[in-house]
């Protein structure tokens, strides 16, 4: 199914919404109004948006901590994001955990943890369940190129390959693992070079091209759904902010940032839409105004929510 004009505008809209939410979050974090540390997808928005948009509603995602766009595409509202970031009582984690660790199986979202890349084996297990039950559903998980150095990555990808489970493995290679560049994480040119080692298809895409990401994931998901097993997709991108809000990222060369700034995924999609006659300044102005309003309202609504009560600490360790 090729993307309709509407789809293509939706992809752009979700990236803009992601950027707007994260810009606001960045400002709030700077003012000390969030709980815990903030990690954002600035510059990488095309990956979570393009990937999640290629899935069906009953597919399951097991995202990484930068994947704002995946949550938005799955229907997580900005107010939910801010409530979560503020640790509000009514948020997904109810203040017990923080960051983008939102979990909600009703919307097919596996809530991540900080340990890298622990959602990956979990996604393989979700996919295994789909396979055992012969359901035409897929699981998609994402992780950084640095996380691919871990044993958990290897065990999970290998198991997925051996069991041929319907999982899509999205590596967001953003040039840095905190302060560590790829050449100190692996001795090959790319993460996708590992696909043959597991006997699975691998594809490398421009991670700043949302339609390319979408196409790659759609193809991988279709293959998985048809019983073709896992695919490793490496999306090349660049982390345009520090690792987290407290990281000034002095170690990143200016030239690298400049080169990638010229390839902003939002601008790229906007220009492509405009060239196709699907976008213009009026639509842009309207969208930005709409997003500003939506985000402002969401921030206010979240801030008005109740904080956790001390006694909440005791609840929920076990399911009853």
């Amino acid at each position: 199914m090729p993307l309709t004009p509407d789809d293509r505008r939706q992809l752009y809209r979700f990236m803009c919404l992601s950027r707007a939410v994260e810009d606001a979050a960045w400002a709030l974090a700077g003012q000390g109004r969030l709980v815990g540390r903030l990690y954002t997808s600035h510059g990488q928005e095309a990956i979570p948006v393009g990937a999640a948009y290629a899935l069906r509603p009953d597919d399951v995602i097991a995202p990484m901590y930068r994947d704002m766009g995946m949550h938005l595409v799955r229907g997580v509202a900005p107010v939910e994001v801010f409530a979560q970031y503020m640790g509000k009582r009514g948020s997904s984690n109810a203040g017990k955990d923080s960051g983008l660790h939102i979990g909600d199986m009703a919307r097919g979202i596996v809530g991540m943890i900080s340990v890298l890349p622990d959602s990956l084996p979990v996604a393989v297990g979700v996919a295994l369940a789909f396979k055992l039950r012969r359901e035409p559903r897929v699981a998609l998980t994402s992780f950084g190129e640095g996380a691919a150095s871990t044993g958990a990555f290897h065990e999970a990808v290998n198991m997925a390959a051996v069991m041929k489970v319907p999982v899509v493995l999205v590596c967001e290679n953003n040039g840095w693992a905190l302060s560590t560049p790829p050449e100190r994480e692996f001795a090959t040119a790319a993460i996708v070079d590992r696909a043959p080692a597991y006997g699975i298809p691998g594809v490398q895409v421009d991670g700043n091209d949302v339609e390319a990401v979408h196409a790659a994931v759609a193809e991988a998901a279709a293959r998985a759904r048809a019983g073709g097993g896992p695919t490793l997709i490496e999306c090349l991108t660049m982390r345009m902010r520090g690792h987290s809000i407290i990281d000034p990222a002095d170690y990143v060369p200016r030239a690298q940032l400049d080169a990638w700034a010229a390839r902003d995924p939002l601008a790229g999609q906007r220009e492509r839409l405009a060239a196709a006659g699907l976008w213009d300044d009026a639509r842009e102005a309207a969208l930005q105004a709409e997003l500003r309003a939506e985000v402002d309202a969401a921030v206010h609504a979240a801030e008005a929510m109740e904080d956790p009560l001390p006694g909440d600490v005791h609840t929920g360790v076990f399911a009853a």
Partner: protein
Amino acid sequence: MSTGSAMRTLTYHEAVREALWQAMEADPAVFLMGEDIAAYGGVYKVTAGFVDRFGADRVIDTPIAENAIIGAATGAALVGMRPIAEIQFADFIACGLDPLVNMTSTIHYRWGQPVPLVVRAPAGATWASAGPFHSQSPEAWFAQIPGLKVVMPATPADAKGLLTAAIRDPNPVIVLEQKYLYRRLSGPVPEGEHVVPLGRAAVARPGRDATVVAWGSMAFKALEAARMLADGDGIDVEVVDLRTIVPWDRDAVLASVARTGRAVVVYEAHRTAGFGAEVAATIAEDGFADLDAPVVRLAGLDTPIPAHPVLEAAYLPDEHAIADALRRLVAY
């Protein structure tokens, strides 16, 4: 808790098999995954024959990958399955500890999703030279991590009943099967459905003079010691078999100590920071007024578990050591 409860004598090993078999028959969401569990039937043959009955989709041989086994089982549990993961020896849980203690155990607390997962592992020393890497009893690690339940059955009936309860529990439950008891211990086991609720200790033997709190293989050894003392010394020992380590039955233990005034806690894991420290500290704090003597611990040594039979015997508490400790305690 038991229906159709005609009793037969089964070994501990047969009882584990029966719990698994009945759960597989009853619930299509239950499936097994682990290393060498299908055609080979597992290193202790607990699942021998299962793949013929239930097929390779429900009895899944995995690669050697403990982290992925536990992680993947967790994922399957999130979408409605009831996975039972076998770790070939409890010692190798260290290789998959991270997903268990960081991911699996925290999911319900963090976002309210139940994780109905069972991790089974043959645990404990064997009095047969299994050595440092096939003898460990890691229950204290899991007890230190909120969100995981832990059971260590000490009888065939409990092996069946606690495993059945574990499979039905909406939480991750670690079942440390006592490999020492697999084929050594027989006992009556209800034929039909048999559920032993998690979190309840059993008074395996009532007595007046002192309480032994033990679990797993040491509950078995404690009963032997109690028989020796009853026959030879006229000392009447109460044996409380903890059965469940998390959540453990504080009330039953404190009630027993209130009756006897004396307690020995016996466990085969390393003494320092073993779960027996928790039991002893709790008795000392909440049962202080009842105590006529110090709470004594008897445990494995603070050394790796050695292979040679002479050394393994020196490492492990046995019925004689338990009896000696009780004699001293009663004389205090």
